[in-house]
């Protein structure tokens, strides 16, 4: 029988090691902020959520060029989208904010609420050319806090072969009833109907909003009859087998993969899949998401804003303004659009220039013109709270945990308590 007991010497070593490690860690974390705050006057920091574009990419080169034009060097750091918001908040807390951040549009009002962003007026930017509905996502309390660098939105892609086989004409899909009828025909012909993302995150709300708004519902009133109708539409598709049960956990990428199998007639997805759709093994097309009684439903806008966090040294704003302006010229917008397949430019001039190069993007340009910012209608920082309740309600209704009315009623109660 062996009993090994650790002697006092061994224990002492462990303690010493642990202390040394802790000391080292402490030293590291203490050193980091000092480094960051050493922003010299001719180096400007730039954060964006595009880690897929590395230092050697065209995008990075363009950012550098804008810095060179303004006579400074730009230090660019790319973060993951969700990490970027947290990083921005942390840096603001430590007083080491970067000069320019490209950030997802619903986060703008959240950051603005903390007082860490300068307004476009403070920067001296001219935003008069930018489409009102796109700029609205960055407006809080009457002040605009950033400039959209491009916008994307949702539409319905269809698989032409599946529709032809079932004898469905995509042009005839103009309202909810005709869409459901099309789904019925397609599934009767042996294909699968539609797929969308109902995942329990912001993506789920993003995908649900065109139907929600298309029914005429308002985010301040989640339990309105219009909202119930929108949830019932999705729930009805699931129950009838027009949509797969996996939509409850699908992300937008998953739905796209499902669509690319060629089994589905329709998928709700965004501008960013245009290139992938062109390369699909079958012919595809898009239609605007229909509103309940016909016409195009307002889809939520996606896409990033350029924002400039408040700096202690106000003299930096002049160069920051030059950098932002350089990124937002009509040619700049078109370049951004093609780099990110596709961001529709937020100005009429930019849209015209883009259509000249890519006339097939016409339906997307009109979808963006109809689109609506999620934080618009003066929802601002209430939006994320309401959105969380909305996706929870959709999930509860789709999975059968409650009826659409019950789920939305509960969501409205929660949202009211949380935002009041």
């Amino acid at each position, binding site marked *: 029988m062996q009993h090994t007991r650790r002697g006092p010497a061994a224990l002492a070593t462990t303690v010493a090691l642990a202390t040394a490690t802790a000391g080292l860690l402490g030293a590291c974390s203490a050193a980091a902020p000092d480094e960051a705050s050493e922003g010299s006057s001719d180096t400007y920091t730039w954060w964006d959520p595009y880690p897929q574009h590395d230092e050697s990419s065209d995008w990075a080169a363009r950012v550098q060029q804008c810095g060179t034009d303004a006579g400074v060097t730009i230090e660019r750091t790319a973060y993951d989208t969700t990490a970027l918001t947290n990083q921005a908040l942390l840096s603001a807390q430590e007083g080491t904010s970067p000069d320019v951040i490209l950030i997802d549009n619903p986060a703008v009002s959240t950051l603005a609420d903390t*007082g860490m962003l300068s307004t476009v007026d403070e920067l001296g930017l001219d935003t008069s050319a930018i489409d009102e509905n796109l700029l609205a996502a960055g407006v809080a309390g009457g002040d605009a806090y950033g400039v959209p660098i491009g916008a994307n939105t949702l539409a319905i892609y269809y698989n032409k072969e599946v529709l032809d086989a079932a004898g469905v004409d995509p042009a005839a899909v103009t309202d909810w009833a005709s869409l459901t009828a099309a789904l019925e025909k397609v599934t009767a012909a042996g294909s699968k109907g539609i797929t969308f993302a109902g995942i329990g995150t912001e993506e789920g709300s993003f995908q649900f909003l065109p139907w929600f708004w298309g029914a005429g519902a308002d985010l301040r009133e989640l339990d309105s009859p219009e909202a119930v109708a929108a949830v019932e539409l999705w729930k009805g598709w699931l129950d009838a087998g027009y949509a797969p*049960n*996996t939509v409850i956990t699908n992300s937008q990428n998953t739905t796209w993969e499902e669509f690319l199998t060629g089994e589905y007639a329709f998928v709700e997805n965004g501008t960013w899949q245009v290139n992938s759709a062109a390369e699909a093994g079958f012919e595809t097309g898009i239609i605007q998401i229909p509103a309940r009684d016909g016409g195009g439903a307002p889809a939520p806008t996606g896409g990033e804003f350029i924002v400039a966090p408040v700096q202690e040294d106000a003299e930096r704003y002049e160069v920051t303004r030059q950098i932002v302006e350089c990124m937002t010229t009509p040619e700049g917008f078109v370049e951004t659009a093609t780099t990110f397949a596709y961001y529709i430019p937020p100005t009429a001039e930019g849209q015209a220039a883009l259509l000249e190069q890519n006339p097939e993007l016409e339906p997307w340009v009109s979808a963006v013109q109809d689109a609506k910012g999620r934080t618009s209608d003066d929802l601002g920082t209430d939006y994320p709270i309401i959105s969380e309740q909305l996706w929870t309600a959709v999930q509860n209704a789709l999975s059968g945990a409650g009826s659409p009315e019950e789920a939305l009623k509960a969501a409205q109660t929660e949202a009211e308590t949380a935002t009041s």
Partner: protein
Amino acid sequence: MHDYTIRAFVQGNAEFVGFDKYAEVFGSTTFPTALLNTAVFTLVSILFQYAAGLALAVFFRSGFRLSGVLRAMFLVPWLLPLIVSASTWAWMLSSENGIVNSVLGAFGVPQINWLTSPDTALLSVIVANIWLGIPFNLVILYSGLQNIPGELAEAASLDGAGAWKQFWSITFPLLRPVSAITLLLGLIYTLKVVDVIWVMTTGGPGNSTTTLAIWSYREAFGTGQPDFSPAAAVGNVLILIALVFGFLHLQLQHRQEGS
């Protein structure tokens, strides 16, 4: 506790609100669901992890050919990055094209919505978590078994005790201290599981797989509006629960040493 809204977070002027945030958390409709899910998730997980780990440890103790290789292979779930194993489980359990449903379908079982039905989602994440936790239990219990001298079993078998009797009268009682620490560590690990559930269901559908840990994570990082104060309150509740069981363990140990 201070009320850290994101504004206060940046400006550093969080208001002291005493126990308001705790009241808010306890009063929330999510709290009872999350607490119940946490209890079911934790208890069922560690029970099965422990039972399976113990059975395997006893099995491998006999040291047959290839037992070393097999034992090493049982460590794979532990070695895989969690995101990999959780995604794999999510694919396997997918309603439309998951392998589990297609195997069941071959036997005529209708489609089961493992991850998307409120009735089975919790079960699914528990199964995945049990699979992940077995290696840990196996390793600790196996090393515990090494410390039980073989002579005792020999003596017992001379006295005519069968394998079953030997296990319950000798191995299991002698393994008690190791079992206690395994269960305690398992409990603490399982209480704070976020990754597996988050990858498989993000706590949904609705709130049906939301545990306290998931809830805390969601409040802080899962929405566009970081809400650190309730997240911290929920986190503290979790620490308290773990602490209670820790003291329980100490108490048991004292009693054992006393006797």
